[in-house]
């Protein structure tokens, strides 16, 4: 990359500090992925349910432009702000929530040396930024002045307690295995075997906790449609509602990237046609993250949703135990000299 002479706007964009938050895994690729993953969810679900799915908007592409059409419709419909809500929280809360949801991408490296934050605790930074967001959700739910929103927000608060600990513990298990908290070193250490094969318990605990964190079925508890209308997004319409929906998918996007880097080897193993540095190894990360996201949206068509007390119980009984067992497994692997 540095051997090519390029005009200064392009070379500015290709700098990692600009490229990562702006293009990939930042805003541009996020928008494209949102459009794609919403379409994929509806199409996969439709195939399981023996129907067609979206087919009207761009027939030749299989209805792939449907999410864009929905987005345009949302922008042009009327933005209703109810009278008795806390206006500041009502309007800026979702935007703040979206910001916090996309913020963790700054720690994601695309290849050794190509990273926005060069730090040897980048894993910890990413995880810490991921777990900030739900507090803003509680603010938004309270500010809506609606009983259904309140119940939805409180449910998300309860679940917050039950998924954070398994996430952090399974990450710690992998950090213990690789003896590092730097995402670049963790990805490089998986050149031979991926983390999911080394410590499948941690991968399972992280995947299940990821489902709870992003509100995917079977844990779609904070927005249970037949019980509390739309949960914390009940009072929203038009552009703010679109932002709320986007937030949920953004969290899934970010956590899928984290899963890829820690458990699926990141950019390893590199195929021959990609250089070993610069931003092109990011293509491998993108492909793997899309596969993880595809699996998460497929679960929508299979499972009903849990109750909130069952979700919390799963988080504490099953996932906590599983992640403690993952730590034990890591310690065993390291101490017995099988790995590292």
């Amino acid at each position: 990359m540095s051997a090519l002479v390029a005009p200064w706007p392009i070379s500015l964009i290709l700098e990692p500090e600009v490229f990562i938050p702006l293009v990939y895994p930042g805003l541009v690729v996020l928008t494209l992925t949102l459009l794609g993953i919403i379409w994929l969810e509806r199409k996969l679900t439709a195939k399981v349910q023996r129907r067609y799915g979206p087919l009207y908007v761009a027939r030749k592409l299989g209805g792939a432009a449907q999410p864009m059409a929905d987005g345009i419709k949302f922008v042009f419909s009327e933005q209703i702000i109810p009278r008795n809500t806390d206006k500041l929280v009502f309007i800026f809360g979702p935007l703040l929530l979206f910001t916090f949801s996309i913020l963790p991408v700054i720690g994601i490296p695309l290849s050794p040396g190509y990273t926005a934050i060069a730090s040897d605790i980048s894993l910890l930074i990413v995880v810490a930024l991921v777990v900030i967001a739900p507090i803003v959700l509680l603010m938004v739910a309270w500010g809506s002045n609606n009983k259904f929103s309140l119940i939805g927000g409180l449910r998300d608060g309860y679940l917050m307690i039950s998924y954070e600990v398994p996430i952090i513990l399974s990450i710690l298990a992998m950090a213990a295995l690789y003896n590092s908290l730097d995402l670049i070193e963790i990805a490089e250490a998986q050149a031979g075997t991926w983390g999911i094969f080394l410590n499948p318990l941690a991968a399972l605990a992280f995947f299940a906790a990821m489902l709870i964190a992003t509100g995917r079925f079977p844990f779609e508890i904070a927005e249970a449609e037949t019980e509390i209308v739309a949960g914390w997004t009940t009072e929203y319409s038009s552009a703010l509602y679109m932002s709320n929906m986007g937030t949920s998918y953004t969290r899934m996007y970010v956590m899928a990237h984290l899963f890829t880097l820690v458990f699926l080897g990141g950019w390893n193993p590199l195929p021959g046609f990609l250089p070993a540095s610069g931003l092109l190894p990011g293509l491998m990360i993108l492909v793997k993250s899309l596969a993880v996201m595809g699996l998460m949206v497929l679960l929508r068509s299979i499972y009903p949703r849990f109750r909130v007390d069952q979700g919390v119980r799963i988080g504490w009984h099953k996932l906590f135990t599983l992640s403690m067992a993952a730590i034990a497994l890591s310690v065993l692997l390291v101490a017995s000299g099988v790995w590292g």
Partner: protein
Amino acid sequence: MRVKELGKDRRAETITLFIGPQHPGSGHLRLVVELDGDVVVGIRPDIGWVHRGVEKIAETKKFVQVIPLIERPSIIDSANMNVGYVRAVEKLLGVEVPDRARYIRTILCELNRIASHLYGIGIFGNMIGTSTIFMWSFGDREIIVELMQELTGARLTYSFFLPGGVKGDLPDGFEEKLEKGLRYIENRIPEYNALFIENPVTEDRLKGVGVIDREKAVQIGLTGPNLRASGVEYDARMVGEYGAYKDLGFKPVTRPEGDSFARLMVRFDEIDGSIGLIRKAIREMPQGPIMHERTKGMARQVLMKVPEGEAFSRVECGRGELTFFVVSKGGDKPHRVRMVTPSFRNLIGFETALVGHRLADVPTVYGSLDYFPPEADR
């Protein structure tokens, strides 16, 4: 207005929610739920949103005109409602239905029962969050609806039974199509089993939720699959006053647990039972006329004057036992038509089954009781 009063939280620790008619999980029903945290401490159903005054309108129509009227409250189950009314009028007229007509009535009623149970299972799946089961069951129900269209000419409300018999005979080639359709449904049931019944989330959500034990179910007068899921062996088809059930040898299915899972499984078992009954009825169908001589022809039906008297009839709809009480004063219009639908009798189940459970159990119990608001409100 009391609505405003209900909305105010009477105690500081509880929230009152209107799971009202404008709610994705409520249908045409308002449930006023009082919550202490997540636990339901009080619930009061508020019905009547679809009350159309069927009983009042029936007093202004001729006897045969009342048939489409009383079919409409439960359009997915309309053949069974049709049979109930027509039996009462036949008792007033004093006519015996010919054998072939009884068997045809049984076939249409059982097909309708399968369609009604599939509808109930689909709505139930949607309420607990799996839209897959909703789409599957409505798609499979389409096969049954097309079969009934083949037989009667209409998809949902047939008006196929008239006092004295049935309107038409089985069309040519109907037996083969029927067998094909039934075999299709039979092959689909294991897929429902694999995806829905043996799903660990379904079992967590349904087992032990909304338990109504045997004595309580009898006391509050539950009916239909809800009653049989609490261990009471009663089915209006057993009493055998209509159709060919006595000749076909009918036995009801029961389950002892009384929770939502048992109510779901009784519906699946009844689908199996109905398929068996239909096959047997086709095999053993007698030949003969399909309409009694005294009521043959549309002219006789329209100008019919029913002698003075009162008659009571009961049939088993998909959702439970339906009773008709028809009073005639000798004219061509009924003096009083009283119908008590199964959903109206199951309404008490909400209050009994939900107190002490959590908010997320409200759609579960709603779907498992298979409450159909238009049928309850008439």
